[in-house]
């Protein structure tokens, strides 16, 4: 059911600049619906970014991250044409993996 991420990865000097947009409800578990029942928590817990078999970013997220989160970071050691792979896993065990090819950029 999870919709694809939008990933943009480009060289910025000697680093790779990555921008990721994830489609996720990020429910905190503290909201109530129209009938007063609590909307169950549903949020991304782990985000992993790998490049050439190495983990370049690993994050533990919680309910304070917004709906449809946007993440922006840079890492060293990537080259144009190589792939960046991003995976998220949420508290219900749902997951989504997408990859992007590093572009030339500036």
């Amino acid at each position, binding site marked *: 059911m999870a*919709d*694809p991420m*939008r990933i943009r990865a480009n060289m910025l000097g000697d680093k790779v600049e990555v*921008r990721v*947009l994830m*489609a996720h409800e990020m429910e905190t578990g503290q909201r109530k*619906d129209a009938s007063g029942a609590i*909307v169950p928590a549903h949020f991304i817990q782990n985000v992993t970014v790998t490049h050439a078999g190495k983990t370049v970013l690993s994050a533990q997220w919680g309910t304070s991250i917004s*709906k*449809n989160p*946007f993440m*922006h970071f840079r890492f060293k050691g990537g080259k144009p044409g190589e792939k960046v792979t991003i995976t998220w896993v949420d508290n219900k065990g749902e997951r989504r993996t997408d990859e992007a090819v590093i572009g030339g950029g500036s």
Partner: protein
Amino acid sequence: MSFPRLLPAVLVGVLAASVPCVCQAQDDTQKEVERYRQLLAEGNPADLFEAKGEELWKTPRGPRKASLEQCDLGLGAGVVKGAFARLPRYSADTDRVQDLESRIVTCMVTLQGFKQEDITKNPFSAPGRPSDLEALASYVAGESKGMKLAAPLDHPKEMEAFRIGERLFYRRAGPHDFACVSCHGENGKRIRLQELPKLTDPNDARKIFTSWPAYRVSQGTVRTMQHRLYDCYWQMRHPQMDYTSEASIALQVFMAKYAKGGEIRAPGLKR
């Protein structure tokens, strides 16, 4: 202690520095707000809706198992690029003036075989109930990004819609005796921190009209021009604006005249 004696000098210095800076401080605030918006725009979640809309557009759906790829948005069957920059406009096949959303609905009915009542029953998304129309509108609008708005105003029905829109825009009504012009008729007005565009001023209209549909951060979803009008009518305590009604399209024809030449920046990003 020398501190108390220093204080007056410091105060004078602060005052002297602040007096010529009042206007500059406002400029700076505006600039910072612009910078903040730019930063947000880099990660505009409307991108996700565009992608979803594109998928919906190209997937065979509905009772006829057809995609929307043959939809005629005004530039011929199958042309999506640039179509949004030429809307609203008169459509010969339906014999009425149509905006982006009413045209998408027409295609969903004629090509895919959906029932009009079913699609337009819940056109706006709510938590747990996503809206295909919001995604489709994002996709089609995004395909005109960077182009200049040039909605036609030649056909007699387009002229008629313009005049209806003009009447609606200026006509005060309802328990608050409000009209669109009550909020959108003067420059430099705002509600709390929200600037109110003067919709008959091309400078404002070009920026605003071309930025819908837009991702609303406070609502966590893309909202369309139809939703904007629906919400304005609710805020004015006027009768409910029906989705893709003649009135809703007439108002857009009216606004589009002043927004002509504005660069399409949809889907935008808003509070």
